[in-house]
């Protein structure tokens, strides 16, 4: 017997009888012999829950969890404190065992939180409309690029090399398939080279994509980027932003940006070895009919009662098939709920406080680590919660020694940017204390 299969032998017998059959195998007679598998699958036999639990615990224990070591990794995935309420709400099975809200009468819970999510993301980014989520920050950048191409009917996508490397790689994969052109803009002291950008933007440009804070943690001048880009009409400025940074930084919508996307993992979603995270997209209203994915709208029911439904579905694959704005169907549903609960729980004061406290800790760490002069700042530009430092030794060597002391060092920048050898990207958020930074400093000084 299997706990998730309720059929007794008697049930099976009765059900087969209704079908005029006497053997379950007869239900598979339609599979031709030459494609039928005539052996058992070569995977282990069913295990009890206790055995499964023990095996998974054994595997989990082979990892070194960040609750046992101190990590300064960021590079697109960040440690922020997740209030207990988040997990409690997303663990309600009314939410997590439902699917896409096709039947609004019994999906108002899902539809309402998506409406709230859209409102919160629109407010954070300063945009008119947000969708109900995309897979992650990287694919959100790509969807924005494709939307800009559809919007302008152009094929050139300009992206800054300060945008996180994974996003640029995914963009190249997708662009290749559609024969779109990706043009990368160089780096000038840790930010997008604006002179080069100005020379590149022309009437074939569909989108200019930047990230702020960028991959190096540095705040880009989105206003200037917008100004340069908008010299050509119908060219879309896409900014990938850290939603937490919007607790203190100017919003992309207030700086001339047309489409804001980003990784929402910072909003109450655990690191979980890289996923599932949360891509978000918000835009100026003129993009609404070109947006990918689900959008929830408010309406009224037969009795005039406020209710919520999936709307503008004529953009989507199940209606428009090959003419859809994207093929996305399943999205990050439950993670958009986590983000909603996180933003609401932190609220007006809290998002700002997380941003401020993270900034304070990161800048304290920067000041302390650069004091002795053994580590030098790679760039000389204002940063948010992440900064790049250069040493006389390789990051690999430094990180190995740090690990022996229970510390996970910064991201090795030379892996993605060979020109930045011996350089690490350190992320520090509100979950770190003075002791964590001071320990990092003293171990590093012993190494260098």
């Amino acid at each position, binding site marked *: 017997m299997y706990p998730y299969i309720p059929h007794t032998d008697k049930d099976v017998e009765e059900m087969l009888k209704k079908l005029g059959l006497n053997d379950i195998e007869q239900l598979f007679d339609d599979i031709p012999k030459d494609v039928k598998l005539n052996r058992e699958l070569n995977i282990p036999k069913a295990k009890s829950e206790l055995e499964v639990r023990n095996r998974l615990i054994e595997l989990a224990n082979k990892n070194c969890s960040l609750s046992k070591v101190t990590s300064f990794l960021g590079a697109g995935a960040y440690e922020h404190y997740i209030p207990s309420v988040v997990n409690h709400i997303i663990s309600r099975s009314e939410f997590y065992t439902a699917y896409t809200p096709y039947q609004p009468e019994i999906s108002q819970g899902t539809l309402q939180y998506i409406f709230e999510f859209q409102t919160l993301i629109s407010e954070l980014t300063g945009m008119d409309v947000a969708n109900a989520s995309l897979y*992650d920050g990287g694919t959100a950048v790509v969807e924005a690029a494709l939307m800009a191409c559809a919007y302008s009917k152009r094929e050139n996508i300009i992206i800054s090399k300060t945008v996180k490397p994974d996003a640029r790689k995914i963009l190249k994969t997708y662009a290749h398939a559609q024969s779109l052109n990706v043009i990368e803009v160089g780096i000038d002291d840790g930010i997008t080279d604006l002179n080069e950008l100005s020379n590149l933007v022309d009437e074939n440009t569909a989108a200019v994509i930047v990230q702020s804070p960028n991959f190096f943690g540095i705040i880009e001048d989105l206003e200037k980027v917008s100004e340069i880009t908008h010299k050509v009409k119908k060219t879309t400025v896409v900014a990938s932003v850290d939603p937490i940074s*919007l607790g203190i930084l100017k919003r992309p919508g207030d700086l001339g940006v047309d489409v804001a996307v980003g990784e929402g993992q910072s909003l109450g979603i655990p690191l979980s070895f890289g996923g599932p995270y949360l891509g978000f997209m918000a835009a100026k209203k003129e993009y609404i009919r070109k947006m990918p994915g689900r959008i929830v709208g408010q309406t009224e029911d037969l009795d005039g009662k406020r209710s919520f439904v999936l709307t503008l579905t004529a953009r989507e694959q199940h209606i428009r098939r090959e003419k859809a704005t994207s093929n996305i169907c399943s999205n990050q549903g439950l993670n958009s709920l986590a983000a909603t609960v996180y933003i609401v729980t932190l609220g007006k004061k809290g998002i700002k406080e997380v941003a401020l406290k993270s900034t304070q800790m990161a800048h304290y760490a920067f000041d302390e680590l650069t004091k002795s002069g053994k580590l030098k700042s790679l760039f000389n530009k204002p940063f948010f919660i992440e900064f790049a430092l250069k040493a006389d030794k390789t990051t690999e060597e430094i990180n190995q020694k740090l690990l022996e002391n229970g510390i996970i060092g910064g991201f090795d920048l030379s892996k993605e940017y060979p020109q930045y050898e011996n350089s690490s990207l350190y992320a520090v958020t509100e979950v770190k204390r003075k002791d964590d930074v001071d320990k990092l400093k003293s171990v590093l000084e012993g190494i260098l």
Partner: protein
Amino acid sequence: MRNYDKLIFEISKPGRVAYKLPELDIEEKQIEDMIPKEFLSDKELNLPEVSEVDVIRHYTNISNKNYGVDTGFYPLGSCTMKYNPKINEDMAGLDGFVNLHPYQPQSCVQGSLELMYELQNYLCEISGMDQITLQPAAGAHGELTGVMLIKAYHESRNDKKRNKIIVPDSAHGTNPATAAMAGYDIIEIKSTKEGLVDLEQLREAVGEDTAGLMLTNPNTLGIFDRGIKEIAKIVHDAGGLLYYDGANANAILGYARPGDMGFDVVHFNLHKTFSTPHGGGGPGSGPVGVKKDLVPFLPVPIVKKDNGQFYLDYDYPQSIGKMKDFYGHFGMLVRAYAYILSMGSDGLKKASQMAVLNSNYLKEHLKEDYYLPIETIYKHEFVLGGLKDPLSDVITLDIAKRLLDYGYHPPTVYFPLIINEALMIEPTETESKETLDEFIEAMKKIAKEAKENPELLKTAPHNTVVRRPNEVKAARDIIVKYEG
């Protein structure tokens, strides 16, 4: 239960908080000394101010307006709404999995890599393919990955004239949308009366410009296409490749493998076949498997094992590149892995048996009152074409809405497009005979009501928190955020 109808913004009150963060234990600087004023916002964000109790009550109350698999029977065709085992959730929540940064040194993440490695191997065995990538985020994303792999294969052979993907008219909307996103033109071929691929049409459609064919088997009607070997031969002979959409894999676990049917690329939906939750729309997970000719093009990285150590292999010079950030939806992989261990080879086969039995049992009963366009052995799902009574003006939408009154999530409606008034019913193996019998009784009552009191159906639902929200109004007077 009281009728709660507030948005979180409407219960906000200035001064309330639902969190407390530790005080900084360092000397604070002025914000302007860290970040130049020009970058700093001078506006207050208009976000809610609520207490923790407010947050919990609000979301608990709106959760009560939802229907999930844990609430009751959810026979949404093509979506495989099986029960989501609780152990899976607990395991995905283990500290060693949750608090793990994707860029930690590989020596620190051996447990995760081992799990991924084993899952890759299990999925290879279940699908009959040679290598799996766990990277795709969802079914449609798996499709896109797979079609890009097909493209890379043809390009590597300098075979550049192949610019068309063939899709049957019964296909899920994501298939043509995916092919278009991968830069292909689409040729749609009509199905036979039995819902199968029309071999003559296929023969006519294939040619030097055929990149591939996207197919599910069993197909969208729930019928196993016996002609699959011939279909594969026609496409392969023309130089094209075959893509298997794994949406319907729950019907054939341990019975037939796409790899043995002649498919070159396969995706699975872990949130369908392998019990990971649907999450109100996601996150899903869509691993892709390929035959050895396509292995060089897989997105990087792939998990490998060498000398007892697991590692992320980026050494695929012909790779299509990356499809998403990091390595895939790891949290979903943990759940699917736990499910495969729990079920084992025997349990997976049993799952398909009972899924198919449940589907045929329902079909056999329901065809007494509803129109069954095709009489055959079905696999995990089947499609009805509205009421049997041709004179009734009660449409499928009315039946679906009346089912809400009886406490059920309706089947998928108006899909596939090739059946008029389609009701696509997939019970899954986790439903008991009693549940099915009760559903049959409800469906029979509805058929009777359609005769005796059609108005009752036309005005249904009657017992839900809202009734037929106006979708036309939503699309016309666009309100997509709260504006106070």
